[in-house]
């Protein structure tokens, strides 16, 4: 990835982060989209697994700072998702919107599973309901929004040949 591509990727990453703290609370849906996961996934497929893990860890800490009781849970989940996304980028990093949507869906769902299990705030039926109902819904919304943003930001996110 050349410098121009890196700068565009960073700008895209920052746009997603800002959207997470502006559009998401403004909409306030019960099954919200997760722009941080989208930003992590888009960054992870462009960097090495180790860098993706670090990015995920930092993003997770950022999200955890607004929920101190869950400090570390988001970091753990984002680290795993980032590392896995970067590790599997050969499989999923294709110029196919459906594959990308599935990638986003899976990344968000895995994040939620790790997050809620590590957070230990919800238990029993509520946890199952969260992981099998609200998390997939949230993952689906995230995937849809991610695909839409990929489509809108294609010129910015298109990988360039170095």
């Amino acid at each position, binding site marked *: 990835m050349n410098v121009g591509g890196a700068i565009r990727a960073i700008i895209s990453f920052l746009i997603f982060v800002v959207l997470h*703290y502006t559009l998401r609370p403004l909409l306030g849906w019960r099954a919200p989209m997760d722009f941080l996961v989208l930003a992590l996934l888009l960054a992870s497929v462009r960097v090495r697994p180790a860098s993706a893990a670090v990015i995920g860890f930092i993003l997770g800490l950022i999200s955890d700072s*607004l929920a101190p009781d869950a400090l570390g849970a988001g970091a753990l989940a984002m680290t795993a998702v980032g590392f896995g996304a970067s590790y599997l980028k050969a499989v999923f990093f294709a110029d196919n919107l459906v594959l990308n949507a599935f990638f986003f869906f899976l990344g968000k769902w895995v994040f939620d599973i790790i997050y809620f299990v590590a957070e230990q705030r919800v238990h029993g039926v509520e946890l199952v309901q969260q992981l099998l109902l609200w998390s997939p819904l949230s993952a689906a919304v995230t995937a849809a929004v991610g695909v839409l943003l990929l489509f809108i930001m294609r010129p910015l996110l298109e990988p360039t040949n170095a």
Partner: protein
Amino acid sequence: MARAIRSNNRFDLIILSVCVVLALAARALPSTMRDPVATGMRRSFLAPLVMLQERSEKGRQSLLAADAKQAHVDSLSLASMRAGELEGENDRLRKLIGLGSRVRTGFIPAEALHGRGIRDETTVILSAGSRAGVSRLSPVIAPEGLVGVVDQVDPTMSHAMLWTHPDFRVSAMSPDGTAFGIAQAHLTGATGGYLIELRGVPFRATLKPGALIVSSGWGGVWPRGIPIGTVLQEIKTSEGWARTYLLRPAVNPSDVYSVMILRRERLAKGLEGVWQSVAQADAAAQRIVVSGDSAARSAALAEAAAHRAVVDSMARANGAPPLGATDSARAVAPAPRPVPVRRPPPADTARRDTVRRDSVPRPDTIPIRPGVER
């Protein structure tokens, strides 16, 4: 090549392990340490993001509350539009309550239901009927005065003829009883509304504009003392044997919504003094309003009089005429005082030296009343 790949994989795994361990360590932190870490992050490099999130959540709250706020504003607007009407109604009801407390007994409160037809400005439907004790020819009054008379009675409602009706007549008089006449409606024009004519007033009785006219009690329908209107002016008619006056009505029938119907048995007791107390109360209120001005004016007059008295006494001591003397008084030369003729005092009068020479008390002295110590 394969060794490099394995090395990279190992490096990735090491970094992953470090991140996972750090995350688990953060997760395992006690809350006493977790909170300072999170707070420090929020207050430092995350502060812009936190601010963005706060503003977004406020925007969402505003959006959610917009409909409720708009409905609230609409309700307030409607309420404020009705406030004037309610104040007027409240004022009317207060007056009616006050009238009821003065009349005490023998009346039926009712609502006046106005129609919108051509003849409806001369008649009105009342919300009380024979079941409530209303009978035909029962007088209808309002806090301001005479309204009309019941001409038809149903069990639950009744029909009243307002004073604006062409057939309506009431015997009227001035409160002091010097002038009597018959009051009836007077249509001032197509759009001028109604006034009241007071016809048949004897020539020897003159009424000044502003004089109150009340019912005389003659005829057996109306008790004595109900205000009918106030004199506006005398009008010329073809009748040469009596005067006719134009009155401003005490009650505007289109503004009457709450009335009182007097029972027949109440008529015998009369209503004298009921409106007189209202007038007295109004006069008292006026006196209270202007009392500040009056007090200031009387204080200024007293101060000026005291000042003038001091100056006059000084002038008198110097032999000059007092300032209070008028020019006409000064223009006239003082006539020589007549020499008093001494007459022998009658034998039964007191000796002259026993009479106080300064019999007129000085203005600055206080007369001593017997039994009061100074």
